[in-house]
């Protein structure tokens, strides 16, 4: 890989230890994946924030980097293992909270904006078409590449951080046109109307094509919320970093020869496969974190009603601030539901606390089952609220 004079100096340690280590990571990844050079990124989303996943080692690593590391581009943060203000009310142990605070403190020391959300594109980390970024968080990666038309590989925690501290990423994979072309046409012949339809579609396509890039045809309309849910689902069940949806997403692509189809029956059976038919003891909405529109709708649905089960509404803190201002937070909390910012069901240490999770998120079904050993129920938000309040 060819480095500029400045990049070579960064690698040689002239810009400090954190920059040297970061450049070592980026150059090694570049060499492994055949990059010819480093390119500038305009923003970074760092994953690997929950102390639950990082452990003492991750915390040590972050604390070491924070000694002389400072971010060079706009950098936002994935959800943590708890709501940083409301953790007691959500039953997070004191000891965990202290450790999680140290993790967030190390990120803040490096100049990272501690947004703690998986939807950075809702809170101001919103790259435009064609911009290069280095993002972690598989759902946000898929949304950024596909819906926004920005360009990012699927970064892990340390490599995203390395990009933040240097403003660079090796140019390979999703950064290059030739790797962004569709590999299989997916003809959808099914009713796509609700968020769970899109979650189920992500499940079906992800399971069929894995990491291949699809060109999806036959979806006439999709809202931001539906595309958010679909991005999370297809990235979870398949692992792709990019999809094309004809008439909806902005990227250009060549049309591949391979064709597959998705039928209405497959969507119906996917919904069955994502539902264990258990009786929920926890309702969780907001995976990925809710949009402004979703929290507004939820407030309207909950107004004057009482939830009879534990209900978590997961949302980025800046969106919650607007909800505070609009009176939505009060309506939601008066109903007995809890708003959880900075965190979600996937990364919070809640294993063993609940048995049956009800959610509108196909991604949350996967992690609820896998990481937390919950049974799951998969329904749209209006049905979840109806059930939880009656």
């Amino acid at each position, binding site marked *: 890989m060819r480095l500029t004079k400045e990049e070579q100096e960064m690698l040689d340690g002239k810009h400090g230890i954190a920059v040297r280590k970061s450049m*070592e990571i980026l150059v090694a990844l570049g060499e492994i994946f055949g990059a010819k050079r480093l390119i500038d990124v305009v923003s970074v989303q760092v994953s690997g924030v929950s102390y639950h996943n*990082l452990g003492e*080692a991750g915390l040590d690593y972050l604390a070491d980097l924070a000694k002389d590391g400072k971010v060079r581009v706009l950098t936002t943060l994935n959800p943590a293992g708890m709501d940083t203000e409301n953790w007691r009310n959500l039953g997070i142990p004191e000891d965990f909270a202290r450790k999680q605070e140290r993790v967030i403190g190390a990120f803040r020391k490096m100049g990272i904006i501690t947004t703690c959300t998986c939807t950075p594109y809702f809170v101001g980390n919103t790259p435009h078409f064609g911009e290069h970024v280095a993002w972690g968080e598989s759902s946000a990666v898929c949304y950024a590449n596909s819906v926004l038309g920005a360009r990012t590989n699927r970064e*892990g925690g*340390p490599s995203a951080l390395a990009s933040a501290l240097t403003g660079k990423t090796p140019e390979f994979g999703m950064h290059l046109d030739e790797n962004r072309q569709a590999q299989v046409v997916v003809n959808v012949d099914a009713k796509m109307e609700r968020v769970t339809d899109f979650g189920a579609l992500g499940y079906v396509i992800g399971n069929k094509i894995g990491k291949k890039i699809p060109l999806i045809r036959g979806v006439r309309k999709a809202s931001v919320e539906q595309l958010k849910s679909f991005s999370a689902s297809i990235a979870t069940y398949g692992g792709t970093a990019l999809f094309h949806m004809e008439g909806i997403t902005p990227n250009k692509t060549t049309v591949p020869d391979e064709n597959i189809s998705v039928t209405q029956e497959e969507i119906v059976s996917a919904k069955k496969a994502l539902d264990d038919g258990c009786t929920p003891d926890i309702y969780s909405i907001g995976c990925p974190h809710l949009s402004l529109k979703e929290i507004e709708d939820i407030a309207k649905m909950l107004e004057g009603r009482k939830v009879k089960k534990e209900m978590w509404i997961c949302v980025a803190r800046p969106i919650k601030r607007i909800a505070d201002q609009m009176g939505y937070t009060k309506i939601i909390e008066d109903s007995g539901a809890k708003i959880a910012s900075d965190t979600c069901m996937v990364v919070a240490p809640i294993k063993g606390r609940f048995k049956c999770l009800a959610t509108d998120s196909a991604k949350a079904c996967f992690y609820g089952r896998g990481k937390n050993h919950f049974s799951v129920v998969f329904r749209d938000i209006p049905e979840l609220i109806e059930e939880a309040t009656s």
Partner: protein
Amino acid sequence: MILRGRKVARGAAEGEALVSSEGISFYGGVEPETGTVVEKGHPLEGRSVKGKVLVFPSGKGSTVGSYALYEMKKLGNAPAAIINKDIETIVAVGAIISEIPCVDQIDIAKIRNGNKVRVNADEATVEVM
């Protein structure tokens, strides 16, 4: 015998080879407190990687594995060096941040358990002594 490959993480080290025919996950698959492989049914289950030249085809599992390797190093339980057939990002990043010498693109079938091995990552060589 000298085998040639590609440098992943700089440095040099020598030690006894511990060879696995299967991939290793450092998150959940190896206990950082002891360096012992704990993955059920793994060919190295119950063996310690501490101070060994660890030889395996490729990494697998969660990206948090990079941090787990770093923790092993901090606790003094990391391998002395790592040799892979095909490196992937988790082990590459883990070796770099932990400063464990690492090379890949090595014909690992030529290395036997217990061989004394010298890894010089800067020169991308593995000497089987």
